[in-house]
C-alpha cells in the first residue's frame, strides 16, 4: 500500500510537471482557447521543471538511485504520452488535470511523509 501511495505521488508530480511544461509553450497555449490566460504566467515553465525535479527526488529518495531513476523514466514516458493525448484531443482537460496534479502533489506528499 505504501508503495502504491509513493508511486501515485511521484506520478502526480511528474504529470503536473510535464503538463505545465506543455502548457507553457506558446504553440500549445493556443490549443486551449479561452483558458489560455491560465498559461500566460511566465513562471509556468519553472514550475514544470521544479515539479519534475521534485518527482525525480522523491523517486530516488524512496527507491534508491538505480530503481529510482529507472522508475522515473518509465513513469515520465507514460505521463508524457498522456499529456500529448490530452493536448491533442482534449486540450482543456489537460489544463484541469495539470491544475489538479499541482494541487494534489503536496497533499499526497504530506500523506506519504506522515503515514
Amino acid at each position, binding site marked *: 500500500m505504501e508503495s502504491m501511495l509513493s508511486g501515485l505521488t511521484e506520478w502526480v508530480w511528474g504529470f503536473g510537471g510535464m503538463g505545465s511544461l*506543455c502548457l507553457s509553450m506558446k504553440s500549445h497555449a493556443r490549443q486551449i482557447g479561452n483558458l489560455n490566460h491560465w498559461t500566460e504566467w511566465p513562471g509556468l515553465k519553472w514550475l514544470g521543471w521544479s515539479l519534475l525535479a521534485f518527482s525525480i527526488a522523491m523517486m530516488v529518495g524512496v527507491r534508491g538511485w538505480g*530503481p529510482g531513476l529507472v522508475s522515473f523514466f518509465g513513469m515520465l514516458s507514460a505521463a508524457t504520452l498522456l499529456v500529448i493525448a490530452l493536448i491533442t484531443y482534449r486540450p482543456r482537460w489537460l489544463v484541469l488535470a495539470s491544475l489538479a496534479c499541482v494541487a494534489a502533489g503536496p497533499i499526497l506528499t504530506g500523506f506519504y511523509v506522515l503515514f
Partner: protein
Amino acid sequence: MTRTPVGKGLGGSPKADGSPAGGFRQAMSWLHTWVGLTLGWVLFFIFLTGTVGYFDTEIDRWMQPELPQAQTGLNSTDTAQVLLERLRVEAPGADRWFLTLPAGRHQPYPGIFWQGASTKAGASATSGELQVNGNTGEPFSARDTGGGQLLYQMHWRLHYLSRTQADIIVGFATMFMLVALITGIIIHKKIFRDFFTFRPGKGQRSWLDAHNVLSVVALPFHLMITYSGLIFMGFSYMPLIVAAHYGVDDEARQQFISEVFDPPGLMGSAGESAPLIPLDDLIAVAEERWGEHRIRSIDIRHPGDGNARIIFYENIERRVASGGERLIFDGVSGELLHQVPPATSAAKGARDLFVGLHEGLFAPPVLRWLFFFSGLLGSGMIATGLVLWAVKRRQRMEKKHSLPHLGLRLVEKLNVGTVVGLPIGIAAYFWANRLLPVASVGRADWEVHLMFLAWLMVLIHAACRPNHRAWVEQLAIAGLAFGLLPLLNLLTTDRGLWHSLVANDWVFVGFDLTVLIVGLMSGWAAWQVWQKRPLIDAGGIAIKQGRSAQEFPGGQL
C-alpha cells in the same frame, strides 16, 4: 545530391555557394531511412517478442493452467528437504544437483535440475528438469509447452535459426537500431519545440509526428535497451578481445567464461564418497545473511563425493544490476569457503548493470508494466517508421500520377503482414496452447509451428489483398484472435476470468484482461481504418469520394 522532399525537420535552405545546407543532416537522414528500413521488420519482431517477454513467467503460468497458484512463501528448509529427496530418487550418482526455491515472481514453484546422473544406479535420465509440488514432493504434471520463456527467447534466438545465424542477424539489427536512434536524434530538428506535438488527420505529417512522439517519449528506454542488447552479446560480437588474452580455441574461451562467471573454489570429483552435509544449517547461515525466503537456488556439485561443493545464490529482486551474492560451502564439512559479491570487478559490474536494466528482473509489478509499456512504444516507433517510409513514397508517387513501384508495394505488404501479422501469430500461439490435445506428441513444438504458420498465412493474405483492405481485415482478425482468448480460456479450463477474480489469481486476471484490451484496441483500430477509406487503392485506381487524402491519417495505409 538530391534533396529529400519531406516536411519538418529535414534539409534546409541552400547556402550561398550552392551546396545544400545541412549536408551532414541530409546524410544522416539518408542513413536513418535506409538503416531503419533494411532490418525494420526483424527489429519489430525483436522488440515485440522481447516486450512480451517482460511477462514471460506470467505467460508460462497461463500456458500451464494445470499448475496451482504460486507456492512462494514455503519454508526454505522443508522445501529444500523435499527437493533433495526427489533428487535422490530421480538422479542418483549425478555430478550436479540444482534446487530452485520458490523465491518470488521468477520462480513461483520449487524445482530441480540435474546433470550427469547414473541410469545404472536407477536415475530416470542422465540429465533432467522437474517442477515439484513443494507441499507433496511429487512432480507437477502439466501440458508440454514452450510457454512465455520460448516467446521471450525468440527475440534473440529467432527460433528456427542456429545460434550463430541468429547472433549475426540480431547483432546487425541491434547495431542498425543504435545507428537509427542516433541519426534520428540528429535529424530531429525541433526535438524540444515539437516534444508534445501530434497533428492528427494530416497524412504523412501525422505519421511523422507519431513516429517522433513514440521515439522521443521513451528515448531513454530505447537507447538503454539497444545499447544493453549489444553489451549482452559483447563476447560474441567482439571475440578478438577475449582471444587476445586467452587464445582462440574453444578450451581457452571456456576458461574465460569460467573465470568470469563460475564461482571460485570448485573442484573436480575426488573419486571417494563422503556423506553430503544436511542443508539445514547452511540454509540458516544464508537466511541469516540475506533474509527469509531470499535464497534463490542451491547448487550442489559432486553430491556425495569428498570434494562436494554447495553454492547458495541470493535472490535478485533488490538490485538493478543482474545477479546476487553467492555463498560457497564445503559439501562435507559445511565450512563457508567463499562469499562472492555480485560483481567481481568494475567491468563485470558495468556489464551486470546493463544486463539487469535490459532484463528488468528486479522490477516490481508497476515498474514491470512500465517496462512493457516502453517496449510497446519502441515497437510502435519501428512500426510508424516503416509505415512512414511507405506513406511518404506513395504520396510522392500520387503527385506524379505514377504507379507504385515494386519496392513500395513490397514494403507496404510487409508492413501490414508484420505490424499486424506478428501479433496475430502470437495470438495463434496462445490458441494452439489451449486447442492442441494435451497428450499429443510434440505439442510444444507445434504451438510454435502454428504461430509461424499463422504469420505466414497473414503475410500471404497481405500479398493478395489491396493494401487498405489488408489493414482492415487483419486488424479485425487480430481483434477477434485476442479478444476471444478469455472466452477460449473459460471454455477449455476451469480458470476463467470470473473464477480468477474470485480466487485473487492476478496472473490469470492480468493475462485475460490484457489480451481482451489488446483485442478491443485492434478492433477499434480496424473500425477507424475502415472509416478512413483511401482516395486511392493499392492498384492505383482513384476512388472518387470527394475527400482529400491529406485529411485522413489512415488514408494512406
